């Protein structure tokens, strides 16, 4: 299965992937309409580490682990793996206990904006975009979507 991988040395720390992620999952038709919503109504499922003054930047989102501890630790059975190996969440089953947040060693799963359930990257298969929007719009190939 194709996954998202990081080329840390090429990341500019521009945070564009975060906006592209938020946009892809917002259901909005124009990106400018995101203004004022990111961070409150919509939270990106990818996040860039490394502050303004840091020499290193890189983006982190779900690794779709072979042995995904979030899936095997979920108290509600809301997290599962598809036959291809993608880790998916069923929001109707998630009770928002955040055991998955406690378990994910990458810090790649987080509360959704309403705080009532968790959210995670599902490689833009769940929002109609089809291929990861963060990768498609990364200006420097710092994140790639491929088989490894």
């Amino acid at each position: 299965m194709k996954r998202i991988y990081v080329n840390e040395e090429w990341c500019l720390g521009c945070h564009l992937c975060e906006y592209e992620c938020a946009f892809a999952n917002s259901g909005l038709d124009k990106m400018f309409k995101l203004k004022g919503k990111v961070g409150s109504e919509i939270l990106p499922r990818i996040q860039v580490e490394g502050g303004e003054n840091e020499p290193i930047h890189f983006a982190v989102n779900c690794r779709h682990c072979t042995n995904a501890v979030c899936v095997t630790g979920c108290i509600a059975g809301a997290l599962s793996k598809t036959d291809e190996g993608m880790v998916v969440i069923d929001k109707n089953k998630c009770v928002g206990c955040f055991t998955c947040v406690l378990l994910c060693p990458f810090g790649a799963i987080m509360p959704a904006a309403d705080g009532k359930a968790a959210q995670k990257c599902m490689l833009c298969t769940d929002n109609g975009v089809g291929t990861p929007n963060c990768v498609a719009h990364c200006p420097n190939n710092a994140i790639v979507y491929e088989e490894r």
Partner: protein
Amino acid sequence: MKYLIIGNSIAAVGCIEAIRSRDTQGEITVVSDEKHHVYGRPTISYYLMGAIAAENMKYRPDDFYEKNKVSLILGVKATAIDAKKKNVTLSDGQKLDYDKLLVTTGSRPFLPPAQGFDKVEKCFTFMTYDDMLALEGELSEDKKVVVIGAGLIGLKCVEGILERVKEVTVVDLADRVLPSVMDAECAAYVQRHLEKKGVKFILGDCAESFTKNSVTLKNSKKTLDFDILVMAVGVRANTSLVADAGGAVGRGITVDTHMRTSLPDVYAAGDCAEGLDSSIGANRVLALLPNAYAQGKTAGLNMAGGDEEYLNAIPLNAVGFFGMHILSAGVYEGECYTVKGDEKIKKLFVKDGRLCGFILIDDFLRAGIYTSLVREKTPLAGVDFEILKHAPQLLAFGGEARKAKLSKRV
């Protein structure tokens, strides 16, 4: 190969999925005295709050048993194991042969002896789906509830029912709430939050005697009237099947790191089992859902001919009450690093150069990065702990370690 599993909860699911990853043909039979499709036990309080629909409480899809070719025997109790003849007797009289047996019988509420307890008319426990339905049947807005026990089960029950009854009073012998998962300072944050929502607490006291609708406390001699009593003082592992068959038990069924009991071809997993807790380097019952799955999985892999050890179990808890989230892991020993505000607090415990535990209240984003440090016993000398103290982040790891995490398939 005939696999038999006693119990139909999370460890059973872990076992079934693990067996099927190695053996697609062997016969798997699950016996349970509960009549339900597997459900996440901790979701029962969310159901009472209206946060989850009944059909969404199923831990696996409707076709789970069929897809995994599992024969289900529900509503029947296993009453005896004959480890020599390798069979299990059921309450309906039938005997089932096995080649490999998993005992995942869970735990039961502990009901301490108290005068008049048998006279209480409306007494409930809060462990199972049926317990929850029975309690729900009594809930109404004119009723007073007393919950004995301020642990995870008691307080989750409180959260589930508070809006559906007149008032809830919680009594616990400990001087704080959540005594098994919190230190005193953090427990005070939780207690204050619950009190703001209207929950009343009487701590440092316990039930001395009951009438049909009241309890008198031992230390204060106060009498509390109730319409509904919920007993949540603790649980006991269901070990008797294995003990009666001659197997070793402590507080739980003793298992090695392969989840083997002392009886040949008999494994145990979940809340009934006492396996290795790597945070203390000794066996103890870790009655936690992720641990149940991991133990069940380990047992299943070994039952199907594998050689798998479960070596990194640690205490872990993620629990929320009315929007406040508490995440914790490991043990609370050594040097403590604290950051606190009025309504949130973070404590990191460092011992022998390693993060050995933490408590996070409403400051928990990316907590799993801390958990992995505890679980892997990562020497802090090899990471930038100063920035980790501020927030969990992968930047704290060296470039090569980060590459392994983010640039390779994991």
